[in-house]
Structure formats: C-alpha cells, structure tokens
C-alpha cells in the first residue's frame, strides 16, 4: 500500500489537473530530477557521461519528438534521423554565419528550421495515411541526407559534408568537461519533456489524439485536420532538430550526413515501440532500453560463453544482438503495443492494491 492515492482527496479541479496528480508520482519525479542534476554529476565517471548518459538523453529527446507525431497524432514517420540532421547542420550554420549568435539561440533556430522542413514533408499526411505516409517520410530521410552531401555550402565546403561543431559557450562560459555537457543536455531535455507533457494534457494534445483515434469525429467536433497534423509535424521535427543539434554539439562534436541514416530513424522508432507509443515516459524508457541492451549483451554474452565454454566470436555477439532486438520488437508489437510504459502502469495498478489481491 505504498503507492496509493487513497486519502488524497481532490477538492478542486486544479488539484486534479496537476502535472502529476498522484503524490507519490510527484515525489518520484522530484527525486529523479534531484538525482539527475546533483547525484549523477558526483558519482558518474567520464565514460558514463560521454558514452551512455548524454546519448541516452539525446535519443530520448528524439524519441519524444517521434512519439508526439506517431504516438499522439498517429502519423507514422521514418524520417526522424533526417530531421535530427537538419537540426545539427542548421545549428552549425547559424553559429558559423550569424555573428555573435548565442549557442542556445542557434539551437532554437535549429529546431525551428527542422520544424519548417517537417511541415514541408508533413504535407502528404493531409492526403495519405499509415503505410503510404511512412513511405513519404522515407523520401524525407533520403532527400535530406542527399541534400546535405550534395550542397557543400551547408557544410561550409568540407569534404563529404563532415562538419566539426563550434565551441560550446553558454553565457560566456565554455563547456569542456563531459559533466558540463551532460548538465546542459539534461536541462534542455527536462525542459522540453515538461513542455511536451503540458501540451499532451491540454487542448493541443487532445486535438492530436482525436485526429489519431477518429478523424471524421474530430473534424465534426470542430478540429481542423490540416493545422492539427501540421502542428504535430512541426513540433515533432522541432524536438528532433534540437536533439540533432545536441547530438552534434554535445555528443559527437563532428558529424557527417550519412551518420543520420535510415538505421538511426528505425532505432528511434523502435525506442517508442518498446518504450510505449503515446507516452512521454515511454520515450525515455525506450531510449534507455535500446541503448543499454547492446552494452549489456556485449558484457553478458562473452561472460556466458566462457561459462559454458562456447566459442563466441564478436560477429556472433552482434548477430545475437540483432536477433534479440527483433524478438523484443515482435514481442512488444504483438503482446504489449503500449510498451514498457504500459508494463510500468500495470505494475503501479498492482501496487495500488498490494498487499490485498482485490
């Protein structure tokens, strides 16, 4: 009976409409944030920051962007990585070409640029749905990567489109260490996740979900399909764009167009499938799962191989990784389409009744 709302009576609608209406959730989130901002910087090693935590946050942000579009507004997209690429190259170019532009401003501009491109590639969604729309977004994926390689201006005439990002200067202070980069990424991701949570619990989100669940009924109620869908494309791409800028500036430092491959788009899609389609938290769970699973298998498989005296080559390990991935995705698609977030929900419902079975 640790997790219960019993006794927490809502006497006003305001109390019932809080971001996290159940007290334990509220406390949980605050603790999590405190740990992320203050605990982790004290404990984690440099490797953890640059190889695990920073990419986790960045991919969680991209997954969140895709989740807004696919999970909430119901428009399938296979172009997430391409929108990240737009963000990365836009941020680079704003830094390069606009004298004295603050880094954060160029991140915002990068998001806006991606949003613009997103709207453009979202236009087919006004006519086509589902599988066919996915194919149209596939076009975005290839076209954008092609553009970035084809037009040298976009990468300041570097060979094969590789860019090395500028210095990270925030409020006159240069960020050098992984911890500082981590804190920058964390702040941006937390802010944007809260903003997303706010959007999906208000009219904006309800309009998206209405279009997703039953578009004829939505339009009869007065929701205009075109602006609603395009807004979802814009905001989703904004999130992916900012994620792309962070990916280039805070994670890799140097990127090339081909790095933002279709494979990466699929990876982001798998994150939301496994984490939970239509769930903010699911985006984080999915990103953690997809990024940590290979690391876990890398360590665990050789260990077991040795234990049982099996000859595992590194090629076998990567084959097994792919197999496990495929199996998991099939599992979630068939058994639990709402992903880890739903499993978490079920666990909470059980916990609510615990220790009484009914």
């Amino acid at each position: 009976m640790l997790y219960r709302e019993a006794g927490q009576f809502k006497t006003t609608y305001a109390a019932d409409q809080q971001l996290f209406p159940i007290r334990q959730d509220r406390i949980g989130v605050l603790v999590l944030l405190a740990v992320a901002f203050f605990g982790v910087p004290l404990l984690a090693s440099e490797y953890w920051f640059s190889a695990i935590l920073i990419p986790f946050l960045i991919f969680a942000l991209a997954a969140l962007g895709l989740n807004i579009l696919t999970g909430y507004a119901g428009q399938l997209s296979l172009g997430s990585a391409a929108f990240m690429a737009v963000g990365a190259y836009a941020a680079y170019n704003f830094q390069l070409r606009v004298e004295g532009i603050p880094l954060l401003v160029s991140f915002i501009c990068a998001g806006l640029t991606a949003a613009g491109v997103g709207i453009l590639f979202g236009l087919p969604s006004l006519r086509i749905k589902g599988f066919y729309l996915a194919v149209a977004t596939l076009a975005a994926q290839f076209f954008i990567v092609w553009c970035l390689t084809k037009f040298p201006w976009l990468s300041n005439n570097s060979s094969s489109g590789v860019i090395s990002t500028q210095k990270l200067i925030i409020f006159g202070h240069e960020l050098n260490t992984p911890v500082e980069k981590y804190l920058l990424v964390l702040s941006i991701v937390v802010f944007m996740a809260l903003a997303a949570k706010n959007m999906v619990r208000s009219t904006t989100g309800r309009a998206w979900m209405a279009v997703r669940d039953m578009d004829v009924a939505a339009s009869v109620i007065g929701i205009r399909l075109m602006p609603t869908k395009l807004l979802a494309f814009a905001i989703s791409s904004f999130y992916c764009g900012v994620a792309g800028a962070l990916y280039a500036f805070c994670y890799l430092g140097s990127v090339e167009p081909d790095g933002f491959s279709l494979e990466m788009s699929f990876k982001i899609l798998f994150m939301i499938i496994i984490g939970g389609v239509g769930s903010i938290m699911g985006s984080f769970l999915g990103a953690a799962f997809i990024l940590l699973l290979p690391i876990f298998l890398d360590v665990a498989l050789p260990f077991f191989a040795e234990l049982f005296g099996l000859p595992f080559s590194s090629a076998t390990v990567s084959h097994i990784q792919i197999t496990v991935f495929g199996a998991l995705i099939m599992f979630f698609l068939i058994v639990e389409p709402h992903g880890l977030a739903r499993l978490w929900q079920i666990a909470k419902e059980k916990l609510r009744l615990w220790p009484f079975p009914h």
Partner: protein
Amino acid sequence: MSKKIGDVILDLQNISLRFGGVKALTDISFNVKQHEIRAIIGPNGAGKSSMLNVINGVYHPQEGKIFWHGNERKKMEPHMAAQQNIARTFQNIALFKGMSVLDNIMTGRITKMKANFIEHALWFGRARKEELEHRKKVEEVIDFLEIQHIRKTPVGRLPYGLQKRVELGRALAAEPSMLLLDEPMAGMNVEEKQDMCRFILDVNDQFGTTIVLIEHDMGVVMDISDRVVVLDYGKKIGDGVPDEVKNNEDVIKAYLGAGH
C-alpha cells in the same frame, strides 16, 4: 409538454446525393424548427445517415439548397458545423478510443478554447485558466448524464451502452443549438433506452436544444418526436406529426415491405 416550437432554422430544399451510381438521396426537402425533436426514420439503407452527413457538411449533395437560419449555406466543411453550433453522435460509436471519458468530453469543447500550443507547453496565459473553466462545464455534463464514476476510465473499456452515453456527452459539451443523433439507442436494453430517452427529452427541455434523431424503435420515435420524416430508398415518403405518419399508407407499405 409545454415547450414552444419556434421558426424554421434549417431548411433543406431538393437535396440529391449520389455516390457514383448509387443514389443515396433523391430530391428531398424538409425543414427543422427551433426547439423541436425531429425524427428521421426509414428502412436500412434508406439514406438516413447520409442525410445527417449532409446537414453537418461531411457529405456534399450534388443538388439542392440548404438554408441555415434563413441564409443559404455555401460549400461547407465538417469543422464549420461545429462553429455553427451543430453537434452530433454517430451510428457506429466514434469516440476517441485512447482517451479517458473526461478527455473525450473535454474535446467536445475544443472550439471554445482559444489558448495556443505555446501557452499549453509553458502552461501560462489562457492555458491554465481555460482548462479549469471548461473542466467545470464538462463536470456539469458528466453530472447530467450520471457518469461521474467512470470519468477517468479509458472509453475503450466501457460497455457499449455507456459509450453511447459518453458520445452524447461529448456532443453536449459543445453546448450545441442543434444536436444530430444517429441511432442513439441502437443495441441498448430497455432500461438503457429509457435512460437515453430521458436524457434526450431533458436536453430538449432544459437547454432548448433542437434535436434531429434517427431511430429504428417506432415506439420511441412516436413517443418523443414532434415531427417525423420517413425515407425509403433515398426518397421522402412521409412527413408530419407522429399520428399522421403512422397512418400514411406509403409508410406502412415501406415498413411491411422491408419486413418490419
């Protein structure tokens, strides 16, 4: 009943609607007066649902004129019906399956909420205030329909009869001046039907909402409607107060012919 039936607010003149070779509606004229309960009846495939879809702009008739409050309505899109205060429910429940009862009904008020997505994202300005104000209205609807106990339930988990009630709630949340109901009692048991009848009559009575209703249950139709239109194979074969329609020979024939 002591209510006052007003002037004609919706006038349909010579409406014809075709889908390829299928004539769904042929040269149909009828009107709806303010505050009345107007029933549309007819055998399966008669064109009743198509008629509602014409009224709220989902279908566009090839011929005919529509006057709304005396003005001819030109090309109409579905979302414009909402702006003109016309709400509806569907024959096959069209709730938003992934959302709770509360959110479904809140969505019914969407045209009345003005905050934009930036205000929502940052939860400032009109966003917070509107959410509270409209929640209050929505709770009134929830009380009216006696569904307080399920307000947080995802609609997909509700039994059929309750889903129909929630869909009515979503329509009522818009505070419509005209309500189009497509078989609101289909598939319900006697008790649920009685509840639904009561709600429809109360809406009509308390809020003065004009109601256009499609229903197969003749008992219900003759009981609660002020005037009835009868369609058969896309043509109008009867129009008048229940008693008139009941004794209309064409109507009797159509119903006997259709095996009723």
